[in-house]
Structure formats: C-alpha cells, structure tokens
C-alpha cells in the first residue's frame, strides 16, 4: 500500500536570529541602570530586618546591621553593584572587568537572587510561613529580582540558530529547539578577550597577590566556620556564583598571571595564609576540620602525581595512606601495638613513608606492565586486599600485627622539641589547641608534598611522565624507560601518602581498617581522593588542594544530607564532567584536550601548569 502525501510548504529552514526577547525584558540602556540599582538596593536590604524572631539562626532581626545570611546577600549585592558601575567605565573601577562586565553582571545577579531567595525561603520554611518575614526580606527579594531582570535584559550577541526541521519527529524538534536555547543561553556568558594589563611595579603585583591570598583565607575561614546548614548552603551559592562572576570578569585570569610571575612569593604567601587559619579560631572545633582537610588534600596532591602527571589510574591509593598510618602507629608506642616500640616522631614518619614506598614498589612492579583499564582494576583489587589483610592480621585469622578490626588505638600525642602536641598552648594571646598543633605539623607535610610535586613535575622525570601519559609507545621511542618512569611515579605517590598517613595516625588517635576503603561516606577514601583530583584539576597543584577542601567540607557541613551524600556526590561529578571536564583549576594542556574545538588556547606557554 502506498499513500502519496504532498506536503504543502516545504521551505528550506533559513537561519534567523531570534528577535523575540521574551517577557520581563527591558531596553538595554535601562537594563544596565536597573541591574546596578538592583545591586545597590540589595546592599541596603541586607541592613534591614528580615524576620521578627531570633529563632532563625544568625539573628536577622536587627535594623542597621547585617547578620548571618545577610552578609552573603550583602557580598553578592556588592559584587553586582560594582560590576554594574564598572560597566559604565567609571574611573577606578574599570580594572574590575578586564574581559567585559556583562557576563559578570549576569552571574553576580544570579548570586544575589539565589542567595536572597534561598535565605527567604529558608526562613519561611523553618519558621513556618511567610508571615514570619519582616518588610526587609521583601525588599531583599524585590531588589535582587530587579537586579536579575536588569542583568538578563543586557544585550548580547545572539548566535544564529537554525530552526528545527519541520519534517523531524516532535521529539527531534524539541531536542533541536532545546539545544538552540542552550547555545543562546551560553552565548550570554561569552567573554571578550582580556584588555591588556597595565604594567605594574613588582611590589604592587606582590601586594595584589597578598591581598588575594588574604581574601582567600577570609572566604575559606568563613566557609569552614559556618555554624548552621543554611549558612553553609548560602555560602556555597554565593561563593559558586560569585567565583564564576569574578572569573567571567577576567579577574581570575589576571591574578593567575601574577601568581605565575611570582610563584615563590605565592607559595610562601599561601602557606602563611594557611598557617594564619588557626589564629582566626577561638577554639579547636574547626581546627579539626582544618587538619582533616589538609590530610585529605595532601594525599590528593600525592595521587595527582600518579593520575595527573603520569596518567596512571590508581583506584586503591588510599591503601598507601593506610600503610603509612599503620606503620607509624605500630612504632608510636601505642599500648595496643604488638610491636611495643616507641620511636621519635621523625623516625616514625620516615618509617611510615618508607613502608608506603616499599608497598608502592611491590604493588607497582607487577601491575605497571598493564595499561589503562587493567591497571585500574588491579589497583582497585590491591586497595581492598590491603584493607582485608589488615582486618585479618588480628591474631586469630593470621599473625597478630594490626589488631584486626579494633585497630591500633590510644596512639600517644607527639612531642617535638619539648612541644607537646596534645596540650593547648597560648601563643601571643591566641589559644592553639591540640588539632591546631597538628594543623601546623600537617601544613609542613603539605609544603613538602607541594615542593616535591613542583620540583618533580618540572624535572626530566616530570617530562617523562607527561610523555608516557600522552603516548607510551612514542615515549619509549624517545628513550624513556616506560616501566621505570611509571614505577617512580607510583612509588613517589605512595611515599607522599605515607608521610600524610603517619601524621593522620597521630591526629585521629586510632587507625582502623574501616578508614581505608574504596568508597565510603567520609573522606579520605580512594573514590573521593580520585574525585578530588579530577574535580580540582589534573596535573595542577592548587586543583587537588581546592578539590580536596570542597569534597571534605561539603559532606562534613551538610550532615543532614548524609543519606543522599553519595547520590549528590555522583550527580555533582556527572554534571562537572559534562560542563567542565578539565576540573575547577584547568591545566593548560588539559584544557586543550577537552575543548579542542572551541575555546582552546592555540599556544602553550609552558609545559604543564
């Protein structure tokens, strides 16, 4: 049976720029003023009372002084207003937006809108209804809405989209239109290339780097010391959108050029800033988080040598942290240690590192002849073998080495040069508690790992790692001994994890097999370590440190999510890999790999990052 159907009008779909701009859209010149005014209004609204009762944490009842979430709204409003003013070319503010202001305004308006509305909804929900809102809250809601409407009305170059083929099925047309909308939406955030930076004297540049590091410390300390869930979520919203806005404005790029020019100053400055963290704390509550973040991030950085530089997918890396921790615990003088030896700490940490290195070589030697997926599977297996072996070396299933599932407990506190790490000290009027003491010790280990990472990445062996990662066959043809090069990466990574493990054993008092799993709700574990590297940025130093900090802080702060934590974590990873596969901090070469078609930089300035 054949039916001939004549379609009446089949015109070739011509590319047309959409002229409709939707509802709630203002003319361009008004839009800019509206956005800026919205930002200013948002700032004012933060000083008003939002609710009548102090039952909502943060005390938002005061006129004339912001509190809790209002500070975040204030910051995002200020960002919006500043970017808005900068877009007018006001002298003294243009430096804020070297890549053009409009995308930054858009993102800042999202920051203000999302933070304010999140706060208001959180107040209404937790106090039971909008009746609990004071007029200030409505001012904030409207102010941020005004800012957002203004920002979204800013003109931008819309891409020429092809309309959907009318002969396609409905779903195909729907998909096509959706992708058109997405391209249009994305083009609203397209930035210009940065204006050339004015040459500054060296000391000013160093000053800027110092200010940026101090700001980083403030933001980080704020995030770590948030006292309730709402504030932390608000912090994530503001920080996320705010960071994106600053990045779109081109400021991050500016700072990166400066830090690249003054690398040693930046390194020292960053560690001074990190060392200042315990002094901002009045008690040990958040220093605990701080030291755990350092441990996690440092181990992630060690893993970055293996994964990021040498390109070896290691899914059992946490085992090396465990080996270091167990080795150090066994010689720590713990009453439950079957060895009963008490070595001084510098020997214990060397024992931990050496034990990890030996295990690294033992595991690496047979497995590193494998490539790619096979290596991943084998390392995954070895990671589990470590845990189960430790579990079984309890005196009943095997020789008594590790006390089985009880682990090695009551690890005594360290004492170095007469400095007791277990006691609280007062330095210059500041109280430094137990965890803060360990924070300083761990910071030293982090510094060692950072220096080792940097030195090795730029050395001959670092170039060999990258060559192996890129093309193992070609690397061999260049005279690079593939197996030995990979084994060095593996052993070095293991050694660094062992260093961190030795400190970790003392920080946590107890080491048990359960701390060293492949996947677990609490970091560090192999999956989270790998995620920290990938999320932060492979092959970079700051990437795993930032990724590790985020991955530790988020589950730690959002305890109410604990049931959905792995779900949310997986979802976040999928989204990140879809939209920013190179991680938060991009290595120039990785960026080239993932964005070959579009925004890839055509020239590389320096090997690696």
């Amino acid at each position, binding site marked *: 049976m054949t039916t001939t159907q004549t379609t009446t009008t089949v015109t070739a779909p011509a590319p047309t720029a959409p002229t409709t701009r939707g509802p709630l859209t203002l003319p361009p010149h008004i839009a800019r003023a509206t956005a800026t005014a919205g930002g200013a209004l948002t700032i004012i609204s933060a000083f008003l009372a939002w609710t009548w009762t102090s039952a909502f944490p943060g005390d938002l009842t005061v006129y004339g002084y912001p509190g809790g979430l209002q500070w975040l709204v204030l910051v995002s409003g200020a960002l919006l207003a500043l970017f808005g003013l900068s877009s007018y070319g006001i002298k003294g503010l243009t430096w804020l937006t070297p890549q053009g202001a409009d995308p930054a305004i858009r993102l800042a308006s999202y920051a203000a809108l999302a933070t304010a509305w999140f706060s208001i909804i959180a107040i209404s929900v937790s106090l039971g209804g909008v009746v609990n809102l004071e007029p200030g809250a409505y001012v904030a809601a409207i102010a941020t809405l005004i800012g957002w409407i203004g920002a979204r009305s800013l003109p931008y170059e819309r891409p020429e989209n092809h309309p959907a083929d009318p002969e396609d099925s409905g779903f195909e047309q729907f998909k096509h239109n959706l992708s058109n909308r997405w391209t249009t939406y994305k083009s609203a955030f397209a930035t210009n290339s940065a204006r050339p930076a004015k040459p500054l004297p060296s000391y000013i540049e160093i000053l800027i780097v110092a200010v940026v590091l101090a700001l980083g410390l403030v933001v980080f300390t704020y995030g770590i010391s948030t006292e309730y869930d709402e504030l932390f979520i608000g912090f994530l919203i503001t920080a996320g959108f705010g960071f994106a806005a600053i990045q779109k404005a081109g400021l991050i790029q500016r700072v990166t050029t400066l830090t690249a020019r003054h690398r040693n100053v930046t390194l020292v400055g960053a560690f001074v800033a990190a060392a200042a963290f315990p002094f901002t704390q009045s008690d040990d509550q958040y220093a605990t988080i701080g030291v755990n973040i350092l441990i996690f991030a440092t181990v992630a950085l060690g893993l970055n040598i293996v994964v990021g530089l040498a390109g070896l997918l290691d899914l059992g890396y946490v085992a090396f942290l465990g080996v270091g921790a167990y080795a150090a615990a066994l010689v720590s003088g713990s009453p439950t240690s079957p060895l009963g030896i008490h070595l001084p700490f510098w020997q214990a940490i060397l024992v931990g590192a050496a034990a990890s290195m030996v295990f690294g070589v033992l595991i690496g030697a047979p497995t590193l002849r494998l490539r790619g997926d096979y290596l991943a599977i084998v390392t995954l297996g070895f990671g589990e073998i470590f845990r189960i072996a430790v579990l079984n070396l309890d005196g009943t299933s095997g020789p008594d080495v590790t006390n089985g599932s009880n682990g090695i407990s009551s690890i005594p506190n360290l004492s170095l040069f007469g400095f007791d790490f277990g006691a609280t000290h007062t330095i210059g009027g500041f109280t430094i508690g137990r965890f803060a003491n360990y924070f300083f010790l761990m910071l030293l280990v982090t510094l060692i790992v950072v220096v080792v990472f940097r030195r090795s990445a730029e050395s001959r062996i670092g170039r060999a790692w990258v060559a192996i990662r*890129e093309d193992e066959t*070609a690397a061999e*043809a260049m005279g690079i*001994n593939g197996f030995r090069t990979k084994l060095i990466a593996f052993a070095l990574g293991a050694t660094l994890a062992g260093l961190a493990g030795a400190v970790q054993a003392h920080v946590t008092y107890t080491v048990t097999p359960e701390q060293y799993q492949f996947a677990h709700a609490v970091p560090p574990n192999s999956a989270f370590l790998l995620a920290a590297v990938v999320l932060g940025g492979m092959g970079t130093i700051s990437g795993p440190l930032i990724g590790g900090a985020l991955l530790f802080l988020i589950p730690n702060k959002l305890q109410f999510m604990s049931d959905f934590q792995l779900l949310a974590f997986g979802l976040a990873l999928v989204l990140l890999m879809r939209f920013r596969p190179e991680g938060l901090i991009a290595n120039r070469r990785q960026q080239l790999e993932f964005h070959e078609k579009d925004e890839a930089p055509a020239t590389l300035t320096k090997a690696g990052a």
Partner: protein
Amino acid sequence: MTALLEVEDLRVAYGKIEAVKGISFKVDEGEVVTLIGTNGAGKTTTLRTLSGLIKPLTGQIKFNGKSLRKVPAHQVVSLGLAHSPEGRHIFPRMSIEDNLRLGAFLRKDSDGINKDIQRAYDLFPILGERRKQASGTLSGGEQQMLAMGRALMSQPKLLMLDEPSMGLSPIMMQKIMATITELRAQGTTILLVEQNAQAALSLANHAHVMEVGNIVLSGTGQDLLHDDSVRKAYLGED
C-alpha cells in the same frame, strides 16, 4: 668497511602468525636504504623489531658492531638508532618545542640541544614559526615534519622513517621527500619504509622489495626503478 646495520635471517611473529620470515639486509653509513612493498609485507614489523618494540623469534641484528637482540626499546635510542614511527606518534598536547625537546630526552648537553632545535627549525621553517603551538593542531604533513625533526633530535647514527608520506597530499609528500634528500646530503644514514615506491626508489642507494614477510628483490634504487616486475607490481605500469 663494516655495515652500520646488519640484519641476518630475521624472523618475527605475532603469536603464531609469522610476519617476517627470515630476511637479511644491511645499511652502510651515509646511504639511504629503502624497504618497499604492499600492506602486510612486514616492513613496519621489521622496523619495530629493529627498535626493540617487538622481540624477534630468531636472527641477528647488529648495529654499529653491537647486537640489538636483547636491548629494550628505550635503550636502542641511546645506541644511535632513532625511529620515526608509522602514524607519526607525536605528543599532540605538547608544544612543538616540547616535542623536539623530548626527542633529545637522553641528551644532557643543553647547548647542543638548543642548536639542534634550531637546526630542526631551519630544516622545517613552519615548525619554527609555530614553536609554541600545540602539535596536535598541526596538519598531517607538518606533524610528519615534527616526527622527523623529533627523531633527529637524538643525533642518531641511523634514522628509521616509517611511511613518512602516509596520508599526505602530493605537494606535502614532495616536501618530505626533498627533506630526506637533504638529510642524505648532510650525511644522515636513513632506513626508509615506503609504500610510495616511485618516490622511495628514486632517492635510495639500495632498495629491497618485501612480499609477505620475505625480501623478493634487491638492488640499487635506480635498478629497481627500471626493473620490469617492480614497475608492474608497484608503479602501476603494464
């Protein structure tokens, strides 16, 4: 005078399938020797065996008076044998200059390395113009130039080129062949594997025709270029 490279009764197999079935040839210092033949003749396998990427079943490989049979791939380079592999195998995400520097991985003389990088840029000016560019963004011909330049960075006594003209436009191919001629003039010894028999034969001192793992015909480049059976089989003439 002893030959720089002497291959005797070389047999190589992938599992049970013998790809090279006992071939012998030699390369003297300063000459260009070419192996031509169709797909699957065993040319690439021969080169990969010489550079240590595959272990031979039997046979002797003597390079510069030393046996290569037990030498692993990464040490072959240090003996002076450079391999520019089939399919180029450049490091696509590295800059051109970093690629060249990796070619000199085993060398320690940074002055000499810089000089040789400059020499590569003189040989291939396009590489010099784009030295900071990611090499994956180069065209196929430019990538081939980079692969050759990189192989030269190890200051090899013998340069092995595997199908340098593969997938290139005729103009690009002429450029590559001109470069090989230039390298020969400079005294570089080259073992060239090619499917483009016309081009390879016209610049080779000696040539060997391979067919399913055997050398079936040998002679000077000019001899084979005028050999009737070669003309029929490889140069597309009746």
